């Protein structure tokens, strides 16, 4: 087993993503806010699945639950499932072109939102609005840039 290197970079980036998720913004902008925590987590699962996988996803999801105020465990479950899909197929997904990757990430984001809606509907009886799916689109568009940025960070700090 390789020695963990620069693991704090992973945690730091996840923490930053969490802060971005709860940063106060005008309501119009908030509607389109990408799910930063999930995107950053997906990158680390894709790049280093033996460092960040379902355990990390669960913890980050739980923190999102606490911060955003959804029923505890909803985001934790959705994050874990999405991270599982990513980790199980990481070798295939790595070989995709950046465009294909973005589309796939879009699909995963849609899965995430579907899970969240489905669970919330069960637990609290919310109603579906098409507006809820904007973050899927913005997340898909943001992915190539985020991927590029985090790859630079990973190489800079030699995270392994």
């Amino acid at each position: 087993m390789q020695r963990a290197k620069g693991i704090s970079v992973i945690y730091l980036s996840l923490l930053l993503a969490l802060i971005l998720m709860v940063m106060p913004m005008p309501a119009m902008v908030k509607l389109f806010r990408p799910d930063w925590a999930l995107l950053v987590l997906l990158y680390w699962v894709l790049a280093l699945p033996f460092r960040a996988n379902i355990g990390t996803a669960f913890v980050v999801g739980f923190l999102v639950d606490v911060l955003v105020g959804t029923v505890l465990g909803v985001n934790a479950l959705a994050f874990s499932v999405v991270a599982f899909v990513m980790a199980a197929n990481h070798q295939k997904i790595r070989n995709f072109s950046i465009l294909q990757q973005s589309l796939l990430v879009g699909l995963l984001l849609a899965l995430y939102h579907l899970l969240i809606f489905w669970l919330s509907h069960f637990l609290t009886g919310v109603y579906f609005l098409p507006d809820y799916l904007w973050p899927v689109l913005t997340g898909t568009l943001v992915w190539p840039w985020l991927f590029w940025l985090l790859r630079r960070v990973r190489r800079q700090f030699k995270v392994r």
Partner: protein
Amino acid sequence: MNPIFERGPSLRLRLFFALLLSIGLMLIDRYTDSSTQLRSYLTAAVSPLIYVASLPQVILTGASEQFMSHQRLLAENDQLRERLLRQSGNLQRLEFLQQENNKLRELLGSAPVTEGQRLVAEVLAVYSHPFSHQIVLNKGSNDGVTEFQPIIDELGILGQVVSVGPTSSRALLITDTTHAISLRIERTGVAVIAEGLGQWDRIRLVHLPHSIDIQDGDRLVTSGLDGRFPEGYPVARVNRIQRDVSQPFLQVQAEPYAQLDRIRYVLLLWPQTELDQQGDSD
């Protein structure tokens, strides 16, 4: 099976544990009362994150106030002074009316309505996750904030406190999908219940019979029947009535008076507990 995991359980087993744990959490949070306490601890634990996240906004508004021109400051000052004068005029009349009201209530033998304590709190963060409309306030149990305390702003009722940390607390807004509030139609006095829909600008009145007397523009005020919100505060204005006889109930939506998505300061109310006890003994 999974060559990436040289040690530890396989990916599927990990997923299984994560699912089990999160489903357990959901059930505990949704169906037991102990979660309120748990949430309070968690709120306290993550409050540094929220402080950091709200820093840019604080700095930006601070800077814009800093660079506000002298002229505008003076104009604003004048405006505020005028408003203060007008309101203190109203207040004098209010005090007189309140005294009169108390006397009349004494004559009728019912408990006098006294004003509770109040506290101004600043909003640290507003969550607009469609499935949770909550705000975080910068006052906590150190300032005497307790759970289920109502919060208002200058326009009307905002919501109620749901979990309290030492220096911050979390309040549920009336538009949250899990929130319901007992209201009264001011014009007719009929008691109704309003639920949040997860949208900032509307709440829904539930279980209204088709024969009810309700009009566009009716004011809805708190009824005080839920035992949490004090009576008589404005909440919302009826703005959509759908008379569809194929539905079992009348479909009515109302628009909250308070601008819930851009709150900066709120007022925490303390109910008069002595009053409640006196009311119960009657």
